[in-house]
């Protein structure tokens, strides 16, 4: 793929042109590295703040002895609990959306029925709707049911976006798998879902993992729903950070440490799924 693009240097050029191109490429790399440093500076600043001793949080000099004080302090506060809540909600919501969404995606991929387009459009619409449109009805319903400030309320709300992502992503992965193998399994007497389970699903395992990771990231990163639907018991880590900012004075090293803890799982997971990132983010818009 790369060989066909418009920047790659052709080896047949005269020497001086190759030298010029080499210089240009190094210039390009230098500029790129410079811009990257500039872009990441605000982010790196928060990161280094998390490792400073509390008394030294605001100093500008970059030579200090890193310490984990802020993290241990954070853990003794209630942060461990909200971190656990975040983990629980994200895992439950991801699991539930896969359970419901994967078979649905398979059916949408293999079964040509009349309303297929409408279903796809509906899935797209749920992704586009602003969260506030869902929050007010959910808030009223949960208030009435007494589910406010519970983990289950969040798990249910996160299905509104996760289910759409699972259906959209997995449908694409299933479309890419030829049906010949399933048909062979049918001939041997497998039912549709047993062929799905034994033949098709194992072939989409990388796609399944990527989808699960994206669901986890989206649930983990949510702030808006968690802010409104929780108070004290089911507070997730992003809301806990805001509570630090608003009520606990200005212990900046602790706040920076909390931010670091929240982004850590996301950054680790993103490395795993970066190939599928755009597809997940543009779910539903580009095709079908």
């Amino acid at each position: 793929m790369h060989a066909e693009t418009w920047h790659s240097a052709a080896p047949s050029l005269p020497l001086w042109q190759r030298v010029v191109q080499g210089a240009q490429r190094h210039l390009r790399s230098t500029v790129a590295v410079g811009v990257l440093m500039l872009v990441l500076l605000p982010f790196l600043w928060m990161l280094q703040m998390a490792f400073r001793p509390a008394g030294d949080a605001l100093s500008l000099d970059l030579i200090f002895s890193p310490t984990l004080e802020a993290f241990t302090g954070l853990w003794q506060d209630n942060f461990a609990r909200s971190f656990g809540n975040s983990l629980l909600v994200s895992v439950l919501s991801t699991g539930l959306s896969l359970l419901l969404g994967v078979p649905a995606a398979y059916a949408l991929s293999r079964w040509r029925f009349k309303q297929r387009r409408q279903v796809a459009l509906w899935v797209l619409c749920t992704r586009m709707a602003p969260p506030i449109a869902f929050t007010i009805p959910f808030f009223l319903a949960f208030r009435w049911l007494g589910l406010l400030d519970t983990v289950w309320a969040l798990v249910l709300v996160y299905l509104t976006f996760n289910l759409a992502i699972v259906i959209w992503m997995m449908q694409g992965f299933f479309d890419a798998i030829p049906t010949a193998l399933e048909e062979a399994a049918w001939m041997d007497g497998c039912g549709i879902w047993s062929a799905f389970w034994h033949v098709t699903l194992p072939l989409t395992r990388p796609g399944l993992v990527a989808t699960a990771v994206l669901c986890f990231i989206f649930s983990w990163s949510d702030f808006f729903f968690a802010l409104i639907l929780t108070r004290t018991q089911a507070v997730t880590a992003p809301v806990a950070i805001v509570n630090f900012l608003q009520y606990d004075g200005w212990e900046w090293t602790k706040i920076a440490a909390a931010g670091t803890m929240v982004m850590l799982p996301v950054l680790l997971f993103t490395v795993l799924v970066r190939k599928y990132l755009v597809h997940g983010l543009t779910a539903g818009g580009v095709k079908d």
Partner: protein
Amino acid sequence: MPPTASIAPQALDTGPEQSLPLPGPTRGKHAETPATQRWQRASARAYGLGLAPALVVLAAITLLPLITLVVVSLTPLSLTDPAATFHFGQPAGNYAQLLQDQRFLDSLWVQAKLSSVGVLLQLLVGLGLALLLHSGSRLLAGLRTFFLIPMVLPPIVVALVWKIIYTPDISPLHALLEQWGWPVRSLIANPDTALWAIVVADVWQWFPFTMLMVLAQLQMVPRDPVDAARIDGANRWQVFVYIVLPYLQRTLVVCALFRLIDSFKAFPLLYVLTNGGPGTVTEVTNFYGFIQAFNFSYWGYGSAIAVVMLAIIFVLSALISRLGKANGERHAR
């Protein structure tokens, strides 16, 4: 099972955009024996069983709330007036009030400023960086991943990062400016700069989206016309404007619409950095709806605001869908 091993990598590489012509279970047209018909009926039932739970749940968690939202928006329901749940005396009352509400109209204008300038800058920065990083060099390919960091950070962490930059007491930016003899007031407390400070943070967070999409599309630009133009004496700028840009045009439009729709959802940045202030200069429509519904507990009125936003977003989504269809398979992931 030997075929598994040979198909798995291919399924990985081609990914979702390649849809194969699927013969599917309906292909037995030549021989409509009773056995095939039975099989077709059985398979339709099986697929229906797989699809139904997801659709039922999806209906319960998306359609039902949206109907509720529209119904609530027709009532004056609020915390202090819980009896008003089914009070449809003035169904259009909230909407009539919206037209009179200067704060709401202002919020639309703030939204328009934030969205238009923010999206435009994201496109420019994203396009520029994509052009910078598009080359065969392995170093540049490696750098791309790091440029994605702002986009994948949880939004609350992005807000925190910029809270640190914009709070004068702890900000390295303010400290440096002071050292150089240019002390600056807090950018987010100043009504003249607050919105633009938010725009900077928003562009920082979202330029990687455009960058990623453009980089993917640049791979599709064929080499031949570029070479031909070079031989005919076109300079870099001309090659870009007349040959490369037309290939990117639709990608850029799709990016713009996506980001435009998502810009209506911007919340954590505003909540953490300015809380809508100073005054109401950074209060976008989403934020105003949040305040009405959850600070003042005017649920009916808040719902009306949400319905207006839904209508705007629906129109924009229809545009995306149309463009995406016209674009067809040419689009990369």
